[in-house]
C-alpha cells in the first residue's frame, strides 16, 4: 500500500529537484536556440561554478550565497570571450557546423575538467552556507530543505528573468529573431555577433551560478559535471529543442519522474526510465512534449 506521507514527500523532493534542473536547463536551451550548438561543456560550467563557490565562500564569511553575484559576473565575461571561438569553428566553409560545435565544446569540457582537477585536486569540497540551512515542515504535507528550496527558487527566478528579457525587451526580441533566422535578422540590422556573445555569456553565468547552488546541496566534486550534461540534454529534448518555456515542463517531468522512480521502482531504474522516455519521445514526438521545438 502506498503511504500518503511518502508520496507527498516524494513529490516535494521531485519538485525541488525540478528547480535545480531548470537552473541548468534554461541557459542550455537558450544557446541551443540562439547559437544552434549543443554545448557539451554545460555540466563542466556547473562543476567549475560549484568549485568557485567553494573557493569564494571562505572569503565571504563562509556564505556561498554571497558568491553567486561574483560567479555570475565572472562567468558572463568568460562566456562573452568563449563564444567567438565557438562561432569561429561553426561558421565559414566548415562542414557540419553542429558536429564542429559539439567537438569543440567536448574539448572545452575536457579542458575545464582537467584544469580543475590539476588546480583543486581530486577531493570534493564543501560549499558552505549558513543562511540556507535546516528545513521547514508543513504538517500533513512534508519537509522542505532550505538549501533545495533556495536552489529551486533560483532556478524559477532565472527562468522567469530570461523569459521576461526575451519576450518583453528589445534585446530579447533581437535574440529571438537571431534564433528564428540569422540571415533575416542581419538584414534587419541586428548585430548577430553581439547578441550571440551576450547569450553565451548569460548562459555561462547562469549555469555556473546554478553550480554554486548545486554545490551547496551536494558539494563540489570534479566528476559531477557529466550527469548535468546528461540532464541538460534530456531537458532540451523533452522541452522541444530551442523552446525555452518548455524547460518548465521538462524540469518538472525530470524531477518528479526521477523521485517517483527512485522510491517506487528503485534508484537503479532512474536512468532507464528517463532515457526510455527520451527514446519514445524522439520516435513519436520529436518536437518535444509541447510540440514547439525545432525540427530539421
Amino acid at each position, binding site marked *: 500500500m502506498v*503511504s500518503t*506521507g*511518502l508520496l507527498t*514527500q*516524494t513529490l516535494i*523532493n521531485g519538485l*525541488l*529537484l525540478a528547480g535545480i534542473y531548470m537552473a541548468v536547463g534554461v541557459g542550455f536551451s537558450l544557446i541551443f536556440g540562439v547559437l544552434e550548438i549543443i554545448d557539451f561543456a554545460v555540466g563542466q560550467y556547473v562543476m567549475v561554478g560549484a568549485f568557485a563557490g567553494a573557493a569564494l565562500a571562505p572569503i565571504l564569511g563562509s556564505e556561498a550565497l554571497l558568491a553567486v553575484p561574483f560567479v555570475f559576473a565572472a562567468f558572463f565575461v568568460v562566456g562573452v570571450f568563449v563564444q567567438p571561438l565557438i562561432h569561429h569553428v561553426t561558421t565559414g566553409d566548415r562542414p557540419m557546423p553542429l558536429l564542429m560545435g559539439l567537438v569543440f565544446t567536448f574539448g572545452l569540457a575536457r579542458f575545464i575538467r582537467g584544469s580543475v582537477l590539476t588546480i583543486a*585536486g*581530486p*577531493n*570534493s*569540497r*564543501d560549499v*558552505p552556507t549558513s543562511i540556507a540551512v*535546516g*528545513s521547514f*515542515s508543513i504538517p500533513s504535507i512534508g*519537509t522542505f*530543505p*532550505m*538549501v*533545495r528550496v533556495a536552489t529551486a527558487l533560483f532556478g524559477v527566478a532565472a527562468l522567469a528573468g530570461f523569459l521576461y528579457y526575451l519576450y518583453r525587451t528589445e534585446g530579447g526580441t533581437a535574440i529571438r529573431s537571431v534564433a528564428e533566422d540569422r540571415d533575416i535578422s542581419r538584414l534587419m540590422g541586428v548585430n548577430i555577433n553581439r547578441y550571440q556573445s551576450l547569450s553565451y555569456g548569460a548562459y555561462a553565468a547562469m549555469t555556473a551560478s546554478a553550480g554554486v547552488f548545486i554545490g551547496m*546541496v*551536494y*558539494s563540489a*566534486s570534479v*566528476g*559531477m559535471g557529466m*550527469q548535468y550534461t546528461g540532464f541538460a540534454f534530456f531537458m532540451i529534448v523533452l522541452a522541444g529543442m530551442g523552446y525555452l518555456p518548455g524547460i518548465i515542463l521538462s524540469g518538472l517531468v525530470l524531477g518528479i519522474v*526521477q*523521485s517517483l522512480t*527512485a*522510491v517506487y521502482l*528503485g*534508484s*537503479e531504474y*532512474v*536512468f532507464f526510465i528517463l532515457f526510455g522516455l527520451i527514446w519514445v519521445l524522439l520516435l513519436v514526438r520529436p518536437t518535444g512534449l509541447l510540440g514547439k521545438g525545432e525540427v530539421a
Partner: protein
Amino acid sequence: MASLTGCTGGSGSNSDRETFRFGIVTSLSGPLRYGGQVTKRGYDLWKNRINEDGGIEVNGNRYEVEFTYADAQSDPSTGADATQKMIDNEDVDAMLGPYSSQVPLSMGPILDQNQMPCITGSSESPELWRNQHEYLFGTIPSVNVFVGDVVEMLLSFDPSAETAYITGVNGPFSKSAAQGMRAGAEAAGVEVLGYELYPADADRSSIISEAQSAEPDVHLNSGNIDSNATFMASAQELSYEPNGVFQHYGINTPGYKNAGDAAAYTFGATLWLPQAGRSGGQLWGDSQTYADQFQAEYDKLPEYTEAASSATGVVYQEALAELGAEPPLTGDEQTQLISILEEITVDTFWGTIDYESEGENYHNNITTNPLAIQLNEDLDPEIVAPADVAETEPTYPIPSWSDR
C-alpha cells in the same frame, strides 16, 4: 599507458644489487588518486624507516629497500599492464599492492602466472580472496567480515535496535560492505526493513524519504567518502532521525567533514586508530608511536589504510628475514616466500597479521579486530566498542537535529 617512475634507472636483471627491490602498482592518477596516495604514504614511511635502520636484516646483514612505482591510473586494465611491465622490466623481488579492489583483481592472474609475491595494504573486497590467487595477499580484512562485526556491536547498544534500514552505493566495494551490514544485522536478530543499492550519483532525498517512512531504529549505509558525506547532509535536510546512523567507508577522513555539522555522531568502522593501543613488532613499538612519526612526516594523522600499508612492509621484512635469502630473489626463493607468508604470524603496531591459507578468505588477514567508532561534536573519532578498548560510551540514541 602506465608510467613507471622510480629510482632504479633502468630495467633488466641486476644480480649485483644489495637492496631489496619492491614494485608498487597503485593509482597515482585518476579518480582513485586520493587512495593511491594513501597507500603510497604508508609504503614510503615503511621504506624510509627501515632504511634509517640500515635495511632488512637477513642472516646478520642488512639490505636497504628501494621502490619502483607504476601508475594504475585508477583503471584495472592499466593496472594489469603495469604489473606485467613491472615484472618483465624492473627486476623486482616482490610487490606491494594498490588501493581499491578492482585493480588487484586484474593483477591476480598476472602475479600467479609470473610467480610474483604481492601483498596489498589496501583492498577490502571479498571477491579478491574468493578467486584464490596463490601469489596475492591482503593485510586488511574483507569489508564484509569486519563491517558485519562492527554492526553487531552497534546493534547491541542500549536500547537495543529491533529494526534497521540498509542502503549502499551499487559498486563492488560498497555492495560487499552492505552485504556485511545485512549479515551483521541478521546475526544480531534485527529485522531489516529495507535493503537498497543505489547508483553513486543518485539523489539521496528519495532514498532517505523512503527510509524515513519505514521508521527504522538504525540506518546502515555504505559508500565512498563523498557519497557518505552527501548522505548525511541530505539526512539533515530532511530531518531524518533514526537512533543511530552507521556509515562505511571513511567517516574519520577529512573528506567526510564536507558534511559539516551533519557528520557529528555518525558511527563507523575502522581497523586501527592511533589510540587503539596496539603494540608489538618491529620499527614501531605501538600504534601511537607510528601515528607520531606519520604526523611528523606528512603533517596529518594516518588513516587505517596508511597504517596497514606500513604494517605490510613489516610483514615483508619478517618474512624475508625468515627466508634468509639475499637480494635479488630467485624464482624459487619467491615461491618459498609465499609459503612463509602463509605460515607467518607477525605482531605489529597495526595488530596481529596472520594470512589465511584456505577457505573463502584465502590469503586475507582476518585476525585484526575491528573497532566501532563515533564522531564527536568536533568530528573527531572516538572508539566506542568493543568495551575493552572503548575510549568513551557511545552517544546513543544520537541527538535530534534540533538539539545539536
